[in-house]
């Protein structure tokens, strides 16, 4: 079980690292935001979503897509502008979606997915399906009006929205503590009448438990929940970020507590053979190499089709 978790997290890490390579080598063009270090939140939260539930992610959403079951080959193809991309190369790194996998899209407008998730939860109430809607956003998004609007909307109407705040300590490139007077972000939710918890996002068990309770509450018609998951990104805000804002020693400390390092230590301490642990990383990297190579061979999206699907 724990080895499966390690493999799931390595798949995301290996995908992101391969994306970084492809961005630096040329096949991927434009801005890309990676989520290295935050894998446990996506893996733990998505493990508790049912196929019918809807997930609304952010531009740092590749890992959430993988955790939701979107094939990496289609993600690589999307980022490389290939016709075989999950959105035919029209979405790109920050805007792809795969509703057939319950992945209703990334979003580069910070916080904009929150009210959309409210609508999906309202639909789940109206059609009797009680399908939950999860919206994930960063700590910076807590300061967006749309997030406050969405939280109140969900609370007032008792809608099954799971608000997941990935607190990686940085509002883009500025410490979140400089941007709020109250560092406990979950209090925004409790003030609106939403049950809220703060958890160690590097601990898969905590992520699972908090999400399970939230999805159960949504499915039972008990309304929204808020989870503030403390995490860290161990790479820049975007590929090319010089990260001058990081205090000395921070990254070194983060590399010790980040979820893959943490789970690896736990497995070894449990007596799992080193070979089994290392196989997770090797297998994930092989899978991503294969997927990326296949995507690289696919044709680019045809500019002549640029006006297709603008309207239904």
């Amino acid at each position, binding site marked *: 079980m724990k080895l499966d978790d390690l493999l799931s997290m390595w798949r995301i890490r290996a995908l992101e690292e391969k994306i970084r390579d492809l961005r630096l080598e040329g096949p991927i063009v434009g801005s890309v935001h990676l989520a290295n270090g935050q894998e446990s939140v996506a893996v733990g939260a998505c493990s508790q979503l049912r196929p019918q539930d809807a997930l609304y992610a952010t531009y740092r959403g590749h890992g959430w897509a993988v955790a939701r079951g979107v094939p990496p080959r289609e993600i690589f193809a999307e980022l490389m502008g290939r016709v075989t991309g999950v959105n035919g190369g029209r979405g790109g790194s920050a805007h792809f979606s795969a509703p057939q996998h319950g992945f209703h899209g990334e979003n580069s*407008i910070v916080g904009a997915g929150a009210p959309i998730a409210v609508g999906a939860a309202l639909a789940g109430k109206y059609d009797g399906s009680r399908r939950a809607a999860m919206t994930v956003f960063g700590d910076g998004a807590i300061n967006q009006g749309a997030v406050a*609007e969405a939280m*109140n909307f969900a609370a007032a109407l008792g809608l099954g929205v799971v608000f997941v705040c990935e607190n990686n300590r940085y509002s883009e490139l500025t410490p979140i503590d400089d941007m709020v007077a109250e560092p406990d972000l979950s209090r925004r939710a409790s003030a609106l009448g939403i049950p809220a918890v703060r958890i160690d996002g590097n601990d898969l068990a905590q992520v699972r438990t908090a999400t399970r309770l939230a999805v159960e509450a949504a499915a039972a018609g008990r309304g929204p929940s808020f989870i503030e998951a403390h995490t860290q990104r161990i790479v820049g805000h975007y590929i090319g970020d010089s990260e001058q804002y990081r205090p000395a020693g921070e990254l070194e400390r983060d590399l010790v507590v980040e979820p893959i390092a943490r789970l690896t230590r736990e497995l070894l301490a449990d007596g799992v053979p080193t070979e089994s642990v290392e196989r997770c990383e090797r297998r994930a990297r092989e899978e991503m190499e294969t997927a990326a190579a296949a995507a690289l061979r696919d044709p680019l999206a045809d500019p002549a089709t640029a006006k297709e699907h603008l309207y239904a």
Partner: protein
Amino acid sequence: MSTSRITLAKGLNAGLRAAMEQDDKVMLMGEDVGRLGGVFRITDGLQKDFGERRVLDSPLAESGIVGTAVGLAMRGYRPVIEIQFDGFVYPAYDQIVTQVAKMSYRSQGKVPLPLVIRIPFGGGIGAVEHHSESPEAQFAHTPGLKVVACSNPVDGYWMIQQAIASDDPVIFLEPKRQYHADKADLDTSVAPPPLFTSQVVRRGDDVTLLAYGPMVRTCLAAAEAAVSEGRSVEVIDLRTLSPLDMGPVLASVRRTGRAVVAHEAHRNLGMGSELSARITEECFYSLQAPVLRVGGFDTPYPAARNEHHFLPDLDRVLDAVDRSFAF
């Protein structure tokens, strides 16, 4: 045959009712639309008849309202939301431009958004700034949105139903000063023209007046007044602003050789600018004069005491007609 004499407000109300009866996925949402029936009473009585689930009073949070409607539409509903006043759409502008307009395109058509955003627009009711605005060009400028404006009770009845039936997001503009003004005979046995078409509403030979929403009535009055000066004025109700239906416009201008566009919106980069450019590009050699524009001034909308100075009236339209003939 069923004929009734109705106002625009009643036409819209009846149209919403008909759409809700035809499709139980249609639901209404907005500030005060339920129990109150909307500040302009466009949704009057609908919550009583269809229930609180289908006519939902929302929190006062326009970005939240539009975002919620996006989520509903993605899950198979056909939400119709009311933005209480034109200027209140600006807090929702982000959702409309960054989310609503792009969903279908980004997802390669996997996520169509059958969503109608109703906006009472324009001035003339003595309201304050942000309650009298004409934001249509800002939405017509955005690929992925469709923008229409009704001008009369019969169009109100049909166009709202056609907008709801559309699988694309539609910004639906309602001239609020006309809500309770003129009455017209609605004969529901007469089939309406398609939604995204412009209509010639008065035939004429000497000059073409192009208008939509509240200015159609002003332009029709101007055309009538011009008769005494021996001028035969054609009036086209554009009805659709995105996409523009240029066919009837170009055919008319090729015949008359003159065109004047009138709208309440600021003249600078308003719909008149685009229409002027397209007419010039398409029928340059038919033109006897440049395409002229009549619009609101390029200032913030004034306080109520001064709005009559801002709003184009019959005289300003006729002045433009005179200038066209003076060339």
